[in-house]
């Protein structure tokens, strides 16, 4: 089979961002931060519907519809002239925090982050309410870091359309194609089997339209992905499931998954009830039997074996870039250098905050080095080696928001990979039931045929597109605040960050959220 030529380099010049399209929740009762309770006093005068700019209140004929309180601005609306609670002639409306928020989410993804991400996935905009959309409540990691935004926007203020968020994936002089992606983000691998086909296709489509990449995960390459070949990364993982020369030749990037931060020291473990007939067929395994990927590649027990392995993939596809995905042991910096010398174009560090849909519960805990330690360690080590500018450093593992992305880059990464955030865009509620075949209430992490029907590709793709659009706007604002014209200027700029433990927050004048909206 002829290796596909890079048709995309010309197309990249003419790329334009996909549009935002409103993509409301699939469910009848979407979850918002606030609840508006309409009492029996209501006379259906429709005043609230006239007033509310967010469309919370809708009059249908003679009646008022149930309030779409997931759009409500909440208590911060109190001083607004259109605050419906005050303006209701019969005081029929009450505003409370949605009690669901007490049980929704966790420290890494508190309810605010989940709801704000849903909002962004629906609208492509950051929330206008007081909902938190940048920081989680983990009391560690990126949540303890803030940007050092200057008091004033540096002048002259750079227009938004002159700010670039593109990054290069091949910075080596190895004769292989240059690949530019429009955002410093691409999709993390989620195998067919751990997630449904519609989930895979939604992400693939969104990545394609956004001029970036998605990844197959370690479960093989479903033929449905063919339209997205140019924007897919084939993952070669230790079980070698579904890996064929064909799946290596049809893509532009191949990712070696040596390890995953969510389960370091273990390979993938797809539990038996997720090995449905279609999954078993794709992986050529036995239905209902758990599938283990070994921890190491059995053909790679030493770094020169790794080089051989990389050479092998490069021989099969002389145009493909190679990404090496590793978790974060204490010698991750040496691993990075070793991978460079083995011929990798991308080093992908997967930290411990990441998720997985293919591991037993006991494996999903925080082992390996947190990503915020690993990034600067590797960045600095590569600089000392004199090779930092020849390799693309990608970080992943719990990247949730545009601010997390920017922080990872400021610490020293070139870009990030996201996984869970895409799931949240598809309305994941973080219930942690992914490993069971019918556990996913949202039809995302399941190949059960009935549950898989819950997502249409058109809707799913648009949700992710909207989220990325909202992210990009925030990244532009962050760069603008620092007077930077390109995301590449932010790489390694730890001076733009401060850590709460090591620096007292300055006076109220410093804003925790970047200049602009």
């Amino acid at each position: 089979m002829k290796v596909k030529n890079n048709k995309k380099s010309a197309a990249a010049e003419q790329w334009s961002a996909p549009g935002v399209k409103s993509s409301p929740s699939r469910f009848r009762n979407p979850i918002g931060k606030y609840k508006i309770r309409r009492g029996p006093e209501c006379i259906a005068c429709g005043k609230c519907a006239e007033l509310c700019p967010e469309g919370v209140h809708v009059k249908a004929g003679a009646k008022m519809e149930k309030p779409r309180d997931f759009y409500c601005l909440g208590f911060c609306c109190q001083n607004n002239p259109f605050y419906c609670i005050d303006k209701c002639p019969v005081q029929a409306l009450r505003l409370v925090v949605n009690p669901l928020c007490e049980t929704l989410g966790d420290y890494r993804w508190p309810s605010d982050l989940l709801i704000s991400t849903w909002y962004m996935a629906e609208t492509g905009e950051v929330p206008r309410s007081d909902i938190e959309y940048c920081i989680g409540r983990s009391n560690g990691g990126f949540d303890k870091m803030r940007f050092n935004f200057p008091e004033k926007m540096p002048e002259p203020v750079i227009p938004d359309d002159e700010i670039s968020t593109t990054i290069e994936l091949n910075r080596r002089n190895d004769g292989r194609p240059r690949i530019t992606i429009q955002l410093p983000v691409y999709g993390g691998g989620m195998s067919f089997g751990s997630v449904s086909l519609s989930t895979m296709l939604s992400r693939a489509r969104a990545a394609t339209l956004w001029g970036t990449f998605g990844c197959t995960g370690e479960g093989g390459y479903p033929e449905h992905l063919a339209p997205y070949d140019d924007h897919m990364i084939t993952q070669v993982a230790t079980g070698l499931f579904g890996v064929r020369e064909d799946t290596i030749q049809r893509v532009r990037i191949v990712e070696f998954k040596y390890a995953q931060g969510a389960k370091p020291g273990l390979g993938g473990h797809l539990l038996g009830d997720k090995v449905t007939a279609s999954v078993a067929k794709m992986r050529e395994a036995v239905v209902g039997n758990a599938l283990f990927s070994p921890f190491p590649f059995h053909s790679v027990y030493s770094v020169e074996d790794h080089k051989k392995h990389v050479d092998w993939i490069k021989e099969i596809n002389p145009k493909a870039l190679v990404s090496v995905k590793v978790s974060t042991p204490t010698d991750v910096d040496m691993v990075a250098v070793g991978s460079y010398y083995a011929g990798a174009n991308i080093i992908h560090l997967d930290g411990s905050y990441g998720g997985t849909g293919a591991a037993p519960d006991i494996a999903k805990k925080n082992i390996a080095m947190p990503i915020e330690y690993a990034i600067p360690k590797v960045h600095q080590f590569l600089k000392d080696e004199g090779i930092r500018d020849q390799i693309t450093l990608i970080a992943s593992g719990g990247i949730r928001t545009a601010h997390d992305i920017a922080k990872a880059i400021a610490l020293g990464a070139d870009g990030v990979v996201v996984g869970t955030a895409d799931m949240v865009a598809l309305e994941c509620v973080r219930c942690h039931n992914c490993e069971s075949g019918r556990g996913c209430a949202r039809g995302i992490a399941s190949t059960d045929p009935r549950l898989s029907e819950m997502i249409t590709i058109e809707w799913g793709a648009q949700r992710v597109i909207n989220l990325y659009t909202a992210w990009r706007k925030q990244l532009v604002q962050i760069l603008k605040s620092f007077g930077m014209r390109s995301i590449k200027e932010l790489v390694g700029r730890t001076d733009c960050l401060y850590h709460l433990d090591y620096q007292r927050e300055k006076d109220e004048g410093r804003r925790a959220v970047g200049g602009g909206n």
Partner: protein
Amino acid sequence: MAEETERYGNVKLQNPNFKTVEDSDSRFQDLLMNDSAIAQKILASRRRLIDQASRTTCYKAEEEGGCGVTGFASSIPVGGKHIFEPSVQMHNRGNGKGGGIAAAGLCADDLGVSREILDDDYLLQIAFLDPAAREQVERECVLPFFKIDSSGKIPAVDDYRDIEGLETRPPDVWRYFVRVQENVLKDFIARSGLQAMPQRKAEDEFVYQNSYRLNQQFYASLGEKKAFVLSHGRDMLVLKIVGYAEKVAQYYQLENFKAHIWIAHQRYPTKGRVWHPGGAHPFIGMHEALVHNGDFANYHSVSEYLRQRNIVPQFLTDTEVSVLLFDLWNRVYEYPLEYIIEALAPTGEMDFDCLPPEKQKIYRAIQASHIHGSPDGPWFFIIARHDPYTRRYQLIGITDTSMLRPQVFALQEADGVQIGLVCSEKQAIDATLHSLSQEDKRFSPIADKYWNARGGSHTDGGSFLFEFTKDSSASAAADFTCTDKFGKVISTPKDKLPADRTIEIFSTPAAEAVSQMEKALEEKTAWQLFQFIRDNLARWDFNTLSWCCQRISAYGAAGDDCREKAIEALTLLIDFRYDTGAKKRSSILEILHRSLHELFAGVPKIAGKASGRFVWIDWQTRAKLRSPKKTETTLIIYAKEFPPEGDECDARLICAAFELGWKRFMVYGLRGQRFQGCGLGPDTEGVRIDVYDSSGDYLASGIDGLEIFVHGNAQDQLGQILKAGKLVIYGDVGQTFLYGAKGGEVYVQGNAAGRPLINAVGRPRVVINGTCLDYLAESCMAGDPLKGGGFVILNGLEFDDNGAIREQAAPYPGSNLFSLASGGAIYVRDPQHTVVAEQLNGGAIIQLTPEDWSLILPYLQENEKLFGISIEKDLLTVNGARRKPEEVYRKVAAVKLAVLTDVDDDA
């Protein structure tokens, strides 16, 4: 001293039971009683060395990763240029940041000293990273202690930049032939309480401690390193540089410097801009040098273990602690080599149970005492060693118990020269022999035997060594032997003789042979021609055989049909095993390959005008690659000068040729190049690749429909993710064979190494006629073989020296058969029921059914066609009697892991 006894209590074997149990091994008793006192004293005397040593040196500084290692021991001394070739071929295993060599069994003349001095003195070599430091180093560490019999700067080229690829200036090295001054030694012995030791051994200890002190003062404690000791053993030396190993030979002008034993190492460090070679291998103990491929998981534990014995590493790499362990067990505890190997690679699992009871007792004691010092993780050691007390020289290869690193051993024995080789890759062995055979016709480019070691086993102990006694007056060594860990001798048949390679012109044989040969050429098919030669070969002499082969290649030049017949006939002779009479098979193979090469070389060149079915291309003419013309069918690729991997390798040429329309390929002249058959993608029906000479790793990986035939032994990682098609190997195959394979039809004439078919899925159908090291089909998920799934047939056979089939000692000797498999099956030829449930890890041994037999029979029939292994006579005949299939074959089937199944292994 009481305090020291307690602190060093762990030097003695802990288990109190051993004081009371009757033990017939007197050596063992000696260890308990006498030597432990001396051992304690030696270790105690090192206390003052380490007082200044840093407290935090239990962590590795240099992260090795991997490398390539190679070594050979020859009964006649040979020049350093011969370690050049294999080192060059292993470039892809290193990254030019560090390489080193060691030589043992040296020539007094080459060193400019008398034989007595070479035999008696310590050969102290010091590398001066800072040339200005020499004066101080000598003043403080050499002159006050040693009687110097000879010294000087070793020769080197004038300007290191003259050596292409050498970017960092190697250090100046001074060589001193020394003995310790008498009063210095007396004083040392008195201070350290070593009066009970033989004086010469105390002198060894002094030299060791002095080198340690020098390293500490001028290397380990400094930021800016000044100097360090390269080696200090008797009749051996070490040199290392920042650069590829062969540059050592070039820079220090060792091309014609002769030694019996050479070892080399290509380093792949992943840390730091290296500007000095201190961290490169080999590292030394006393009279041995060690190189290492691998990476320990328990460096910290090993360092702690050594630290408890007052040994603190200075260079902070795995390799250094490996040889420190060796030296500890060798010189301080005075263990025999067998126990040292046991301490490094403990026998476990079923192999331990198979040991005789006396060995179990001793090994248990060794393991209990030294497990914390036993290196864990992938490793393979090659050690060049001189034991001056027995005057034996040894080249030792030891593999870890999980066999995570590739290793190949080889032996060649002829009248007058014997050579043993051990390498990470077979093609490095072939490169060494090739280099030697060009210079000295007594060496042959093909070894008589190639094999792997089974780590931690009771069969070979995961270790083989080549040893000899050096006879100073004679030119060749005496008593050259190859043994395994237990002392079992490996040898080649003495009744088979090599060809005289100095003869290049062959006289016409007797008229009858000539006319038969001519008739055969004209009238017979290739197969019949092969049969004719095979049937007569045993009684022919080398001259007749060579003449016949020359006739074949001359005949092949006549035209395409002749050429095709000739190639096929010679190939069949290379592939099959048969009686060779009094002639060595390796010599026959050399003759056959020579004629085959001549035949290939006579094929019309791609840039030329002539056209027929065959077209020849090589590295020089690669740019001329084009589509086949109308008559052209077969592309012959002379691979010798192609790089081993990368965009320009011969495997990529095959892909490009395939895209242009070529379907038949013959690749020859390979020296370890990789990836043949990879990259052609799907839609390869009708493609056939024949591979000759030393093919490399990853061959046939990912093939999807094509056929590939390897006419010889194959290397590692073959058939990874193989999807469909046919792979035939006329020889042995290496590590992780068919990893993640998804289908295909595969036939192996010989053995596989570690982890064949691991993680296989789908429907591969494989016949392995030999056995394998261990971990066969681990995590196999290949469905139900009776419903279209995959399986492996394991015959456990081998060819004897006369080409006849015989059973191996066990069809499966390892302890991990079909572990965690959820699909597929293993059909093992096991009429003696040697395979037991203890070797399984989740499978079940069940009776062969008629259905099973119908399933595997066609594959055994194809196997018979390919290799001549007869179903009736070889497979189903046991001890002379023909048996039923279900009495000979047993099935290892997958079981649902949650269900307990009784093993049903009695017919």
